[in-house]
């Protein structure tokens, strides 16, 4: 679980990738964009990968992150019944 203090940074990170859904970026690149240190970003990025918001296109040693769109189901089947 990400520490409470990191939540705003986690949200900031999410919004960065959401605003640039085709961006593929290294930790250094993200650190520069958000004006943060790598150490601050590491736990947040790991958490975002666990949550499925980001995907790591690189490997453990040189990760490269990209936004992963949520899953979309159109027309949920079945008739609705009144409560």
């Amino acid at each position, binding site marked *: *679980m*990400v520490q*409470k*203090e990191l*939540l*705003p940074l*986690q*949200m*900031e990170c*999410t*919004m960065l990738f*959401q*605003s640039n859904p085709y961006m593929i970026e290294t930790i250094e690149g993200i650190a520069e964009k958000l004006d943060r240190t790598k150490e601050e970003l590491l736990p947040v990025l790991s*958490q*975002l990968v666990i*949550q*499925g*918001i980001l995907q790591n296109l690189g490997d453990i040693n040189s990760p490269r992150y990209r936004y992963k*769109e*949520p*899953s*979309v*189901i*159109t*027309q*949920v*089947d*079945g008739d*609705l*019944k*009144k*409560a």
Partner: protein
Amino acid sequence: MIQRIELLQELQKSYAEKYNLSIIMTDDNGKIILDRVGNNPLFNWFYDNKREVLQEEFNRAKEKKVNTAPYLYDIWPGAYMIVAPFHGENGHIYLIWAGIVIVEGTEQLVNEQLQESVNINFIEMINNTPVITHEPNQPLMKRIKRLAHLATIYFKDHDKSDIYEIQKGLFRKVLEERSQLNTILEESLQNNLEFDFFGIAKKHSDDHYKVTEVFGHGVKSMRGMTFSHGEGLIGRPLITDKYEYWENVEKDPRSVSLSRYGLKPKSFFCYPLKRYQDSSTLLFGGSHSNSKMSTRCRELGKILGSILETGFLIEDLQKENQQQINRLTSMVEISKLMVSTHDFKRIVYILVDISLNLMEGPFTCVVLKEQHNDSVNLVSRGNPNGNLREYAKNVAERHFLNPVNTQQFEIITPKFEETPWGERTLECPLWNRGRIVGVLCVAINEQQAKLQEHVNFLQTLSVIGGVSLQIVEQEEEELDDKLVYSLFRAIKQFDQDVYSILEEAAKIAKEFAEMQGLPVPVINEITHSCLLSYYSSAFIQETLPETRLRTVIDEGNTLLNVNKGDSWESASISAQVFALAMAYVKDQSINKLEKVYDGRLIKDFKSFLYETQVLEEKVSIAETSVSIQEQVLDTVTSTIQELKLSPREQEVLDLVIQGYNNKEIAQQLYISGHTVKNHVTKIFQKLEVPDRAHAISKVYRLKHQSG
């Protein structure tokens, strides 16, 4: 050093004079604190001439401490000092030395011994020296014991006020922003000599605590020590959750855990500090030399504990406050992004991602309701343990099938629900001005400590999300509107007749749909379908893919060509109205449709057509003979006055006859539509007629009869 000395000096002087003694006071190391007072000749001679002899005795006396009862200390055989220890400030022990006294019958012997050592005859001095016996309960001993008792009481009172002073000082320090924990503990060590060390242990893991900071001497090796709940002396208060204090610790087997880390205190205390949101911290401290701490010192330990608790609380609250500010800043940024984006999909993604960030549960999703039909879409993230489609269906049934009253604000309050597979969720409706766009559903992480805070955040997020989604939806509709009317105007360029027919169809369909009380989006859908029905369904699908126009046109055209009423029963209301309007503009009749289906809608449409025709006829009369109408109306007015109606009802009936509808009558008379309706109903009752047409007819009949 004794600070408050005046009263003690007075006591010293009084006792010395009264009992012919000389009295001094030393600390427990033999250092003279209060100088000699009194006229005991033997004592004074030695004090003035052989101080080192007495000092040696004072120094040696510490070996006999620490009794609280007075005792006789022999200087030479037969010659004694009465020594009475008492508790002074900071828990220190002080000694009263009162003397010299001689045991009854030993005067000669004492004189001989003194003469031998200093070669002076002391007999006269000895004769003026107070005498004691060997019997217990010596009166002189009792007196000096009393003096020690008074001195203890004196310091106790001062200790109390002293504690308040210390307490005040510590509080001030804690409240000062720059004052740190180590400053407070270090200063406390300097000011209170009974304490030799302090330490702080913090929660390290679920079951273990770790010593993070130590202050004082002989305690450095403790830093980094880990211990569990209930382990040894130090772990015990974590179970009892209370201040604990131990004396003679070196004899307590539970002190092994401390001695393993090189700490061998004689007295020890622990104070579990309650922290904001249950993150416990432990303060401990003690003495390497005192097996027993004074009450005052123990109290001071407690005070120190509660003051540190306050300090931590302030620190925690400041931290919490900063976190809230950060979170609010994030919320502002997210809100700005949501209201500024024109992309419906992106707003939904923000809702899904941010709520997952926040709650860290197994999944989040947004269940979306299509605007013009009952279709439900689902956007989700995470790995639910069950079938998300099934849950989405439940959500839709709960939220979309029960119409929302705009006054029922509680409907927009998030509610806790459960998935079919038993996961707890929070459902936040995305709602604005009586219309629900969707529901943000967030599975709850049961380990989240700040659930209520997150609920508030999610509620705000969903309110802003709901408004943003509707704004984007409206923008998209406005774009579609423009496109529909452009395509319709294009028809005029190459087929004027078709253009006019479609325009009329759209007009009739719109008026009828309004009369039916259909919602605005449905009315627009029907009108647009009429306007664009000239185009092929493939073209409409390609040009306006996000709308239902193609479906309505295809379904409506099918209704125009079927031979059975079953299709009508199952068709959407949009398609039915479309078919009725198109049939009427083509044939100026709906007889063909009536033969296939005779449902309520067809009957209503016929009534609608009939009313429209009547209105047109009235318009034509009004246009052709204004003067005649005025003459007729004059005569009708007099007839109305003859009826048994109230003046207001007469006014209303007059306007009914002039062809005004209820709304127009309300505007004319400055009354509500509801009141007009009431008046009209009463008029019908009094005239014994079923409707307007009969009422008008009756008034004219009466006029002819009277004429």
